[in-house]
């Protein structure tokens, strides 16, 4: 396992450097002068433009800029935000706990709802429960997250006044965004759980377990679900990766002070140092979560080859 972990980590290094290079290239690829783009056409003196260009290191050749960027990142320096004048890393650190809270809250909702709906649909295949579960899943897949979020705000915050429209630090204010994000992502989980369970339920060892006289609950949970876990862990891992990467839309709809909301503001203001920092952190998180999912396969099923 240690050798496998080492090899997988080693494989991640070139991917991460490629991501770093692409993130660096964002700024040189901006059509026109990036400084003027960031100034949004505001008329400023040539000295200010020259000073900003110098601060961003744009006077140097592309190769030197790249080396400075890589060195900075490796030393934990992601640059300074053009709009807030704060170090990018500090901005991200401030926002990450809120994103973590939302990611885990919504993962709990999507796992519970997705597992229950998927297992019920598989066990009662072709019944009303199956149809209802799959209708729910199809509706979830087709639902625009921003509209669903606004509907939740309209019913539960505006009409029923159960929650505040503006979120605070309390656990209660987590409920609405976490349920919204969790319900939307649970539809993909439910579909996958259903198909994975259907495949496993048709296998001989399930018939053997039933023939031995085991209780149905034990057959379903200990035998079927355990063997259906690999695809389920994959989708849950991907969901967590997506949620940890900052659920941009949900955070923007609920004004949730996470990395996604920070990203939307940075993208709108074209604050390139902040954008680059956020894209790098998000992509790194995504790669690491995928790595963790791969490692989890090994724990769940020792037959999974190390290659």
């Amino acid at each position: 396992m240690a050798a496998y972990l080492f090899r997988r980590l080693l494989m991640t290094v070139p991917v991460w450097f490629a991501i770093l290079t692409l993130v660096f290239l964002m700024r040189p690829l901006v059509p026109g002068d990036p400084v003027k783009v960031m100034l949004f056409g505001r008329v400023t003196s040539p000295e200010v433009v020259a000073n900003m260009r110098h601060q961003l290191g744009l006077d140097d050749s592309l190769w030197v800029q790249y080396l400075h960027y890589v060195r900075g990142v490796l030393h934990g320096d992601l640059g300074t935000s053009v709009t807030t004048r704060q170090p990018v890393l500090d901005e991200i650190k401030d926002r990450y706990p809120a994103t973590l809270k939302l990611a885990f809250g919504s993962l709990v909702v999507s796992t519970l709802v997705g597992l229950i709906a998927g297992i019920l649909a598989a066990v009662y295949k072709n019944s009303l429960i199956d149809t209802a579960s799959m209708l729910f899943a199809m509706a979830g897949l087709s639902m625009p997250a921003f509209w669903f979020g606004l509907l939740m705000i309209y019913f539960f915050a505006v009409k029923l006044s159960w929650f505040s429209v503006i979120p605070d630090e309390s656990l209660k204010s987590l409920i609405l965004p976490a349920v919204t994000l969790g319900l939307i992502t649970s539809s993909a989980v439910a579909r996958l759980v259903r198909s994975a369970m259907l495949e496993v339920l048709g296998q001989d060892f399930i018939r053997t377990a039933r023939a031995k006289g085991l209780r149905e609950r034990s057959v379903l949970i200990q035998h079927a679900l355990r063997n259906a876990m690999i695809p389920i862990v994959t989708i849950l891992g991907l969901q967590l990766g997506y949620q940890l990467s900052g659920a941009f839309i949900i955070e923007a709809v609920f004004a949730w002070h996470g990395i996604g909301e920070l990203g939307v503001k940075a993208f709108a203001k074209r604050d390139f140092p902040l954008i680059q920092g956020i894209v790098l952190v998000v992509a790194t998180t995504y790669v690491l979560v995928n790595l963790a999912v791969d490692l989890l396969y090994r724990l769940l099923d020792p037959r999974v080859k190390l290659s």
Partner: protein
Amino acid sequence: MNVTAAVNAVRRPRDQTGTIPFLRRLFAQRQAQIGGVIVAILVLMAIFAPVIAPYDPTEIKAGKPLTSPSRAHLFGTDDLGRDMFSRIVYGARITLRIGAIIVAIEVSLGVVIGLLAGYYGRWVDTLLMRFTDIVLAFPGLMLALAIVATLGPSLTNAIIAVGLASWPLFARVVRGSVLSVKEMEYVTAGRVLGARGPHILRKTILPNVLAPIIVLASLEFPAAVLVAAALSFLGLGAQPPTPEWGALLVNGRSYIRSAPYLINIPGAAIFLVVLAFNLLGNTLRDILDPRLRIR
């Protein structure tokens, strides 16, 4: 069995592969029927928008601002008195165009890269697939956001961004299909007869990997519509006064208490269109992918 019956027996399977039998099989499914009706309405709305829409979609003060749905204004009016029904009807055109262009970009890039990687193998495959993996290492929406931020916010740039962020799925699927098709005897026969790589790719391999491309394109269309609407919602896609549905929704957000129809009507329109294409795509997948059909 007489000769005619024997010929018919041989012919039957071939007849079932034609376009009309295929469409008959597709629309025999309830899911495809519902999806098909909604898509047909959308297409008709888009084609006949100038006839159906009672007002110009950008006409300010077509009615009193923030009027609830009534006979004069079926879907009410927005904060500037623009007729929401006309804006939704014209928005159908934009939605269809967005979905079609994004999928065209994804297919063009993904299919070319997948064909080249799968057919030529070796360093071409390694180079193209590692690049694909790197693009896949970014969450799709965030990559699209980053590209729009780089190019500047506009509907055209949003379309380019979503297309550029979503092609890797096509590249992966096409490469996988090419790897199995290129081992077929008819491909070897073409090579023996002197056909060159590009000719074999275009004339022999591409037609045989079309099924997964069609299935994926039908499933990517609704995803593309959703992401483009999301970009407009975040202010990075369609800009005012374009009646794109995501942009209509963001405008209505400020009036969630006094005029909730301003968010509900465009939201429901996006939901219905995405649902319709998902239903069609799912049925297509069930028909064209025999492995899934058995299950």
